[in-house]
């Protein structure tokens, strides 16, 4: 005997019943709106496209599973979503027992196969430098950079996710940017 799953419900009995509550975006719309941001955020943290794809799927499975518990108005959807993403990554890192620093193979592989116009190659190279430069950051700094530029979150939201204060996030991000800039200049200098 095979198992089936079905949903069912009773007929409407109380048409006069109204209950004003905040409306929730549908899960399809959530997927549309957040897919790329989550993918980018995860890519920042793992540096590997294939892992990013895998983890992004896991994050969405969790979102779908828990969405019925999310109450709009208690906290922003973004904070809820990226907290799930961050926790999924924590689990992943713990499980894989190695802190992934930049794994550039996947990204480099894609580029070496392309012989596109010069402009496209340069773009990729500069992106590669940026990603490489991330390795000078501490784990916390990198997490914040990922939330700011990968997930596209504001400092106040990052603060909630990282259990920190908005001003502290600002300070750490500024410091991270300076470190990155210095590293990029060093790379440029070395290449020159």
């Amino acid at each position, binding site marked *: *005997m*095979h*198992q*089936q*799953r*079905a*949903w*069912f*419900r*009773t*007929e*409407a*009995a*109380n*048409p006069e*019943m*109204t*209950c004003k*509550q905040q*409306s*929730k975006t*549908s*899960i*399809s*719309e959530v*997927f549309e709106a957040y*897919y*790329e941001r989550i*993918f*980018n955020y995860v*890519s920042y943290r793992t540096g590997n*496209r294939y892992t*990013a*794809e895998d983890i992004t*799927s896991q994050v*969405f*499975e969790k*979102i*779908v*599973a*828990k969405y*019925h518990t999310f109450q709009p108005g208690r906290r922003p959807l973004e904070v809820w979503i990226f907290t799930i993403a961050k926790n999924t990554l924590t689990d992943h890192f713990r499980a894989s027992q190695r802190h992934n620093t930049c794994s550039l193979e996947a990204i480099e592989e*894609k580029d070496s196969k392309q012989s596109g116009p010069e402009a496209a190659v340069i773009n990729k190279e*500069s*992106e590669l430098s*940026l990603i490489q430069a991330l390795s000078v950051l501490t784990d916390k700094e990198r997490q914040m*950079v990922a939330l*700011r*530029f990968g997930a*596209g979150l*504001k*400092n106040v939201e990052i603060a909630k996710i990282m259990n920190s204060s908005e001003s502290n996030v*600002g*300070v750490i*991000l*500024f410091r991270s*940017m*300076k470190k*990155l*800039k210095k590293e990029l200049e060093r790379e440029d200098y070395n290449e020159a």
Partner: protein
Amino acid sequence: MKPNTSADAFTNSLDDYLNHGKMPSGTEKHDPEVADLLDLGKKLSEIDFGARAYKEQTRKAVFAATTASDSATIWQKSWFIKGAVAAAAVSLFVGVMFSPPAIAGEWMGKIIKTLSLGYIEIQQVEPENIPVPYELQGKIFDEHGNALTQMSVSDQKVYTADGEEIAGYSDGVIITKQDAERDLKDIGMTTIHDAAKLNDYTNFEVKVPAYLPEGYQFERAEQYNNDDGLPAPEYINLYYRNTQGQELKLFQREASEETAYGLSTESRVEEIEINGQPAALIGDSSIDWQSDGVLYSLAADKTGQSLNKEELIKIAESIK
């Protein structure tokens, strides 16, 4: 310039610069370091990690996974029914109308209340229109043949592209009303007219109400047949009728992961107790509860003069 002033300038201008590409006038001239860092920030936010390449396959994987897998959502856990008992049979079981539901996680609407009663999950939702779940997009139509993008969670008949009325949705398959009725016929039912034989084909002790309102008597019991033609021992449906022809249904099933069920309704759901056990009173005309390893669903006939909730509770409490 003091470091913290630059930090502030950077922090305060970053949002604007990322979103609109504009930095405060004079930044490049007076604060070139900040200007550089803002530029760097923009580049970081524009890195193309190749997300688009995976989007569609991820979408399919995620939405398929959540309907097929045995994940932890309360929906999936509660909503399994076993074996030959097809989706249509379930609708008989709880005496409800089967309608196209939302996928786990899709039923976003406004969940007003959820009652968890062991293997039974009752959810009260607000009547409203919800977007058609991803899996059903392009597959369900109204009576005029227009593809639906929104569906009402209340009684709304929906149809396939061929105009067949849809009874429900289960495990990735749309079930038409015809399919459901045919499945039921194929399944076959065993009818029992002798109240003394209720335990003959069941796994559990079938208890009956000691109290019945005036005029009601036991009419018959029914069991669904398994593939081998014998009654499935986990389920039994009792029917009582009064002299006016009104029906009272008492459906019982042995409580387990496989027989567990869930129900979403727009009717008011009230948490009550039946002999100290938590129970759900739905719309004042039915009560669902679990007791001693058995799931009970008692439903009054809504046509004509129906039994009030006090009577229903009295009947339920007399089942011991």
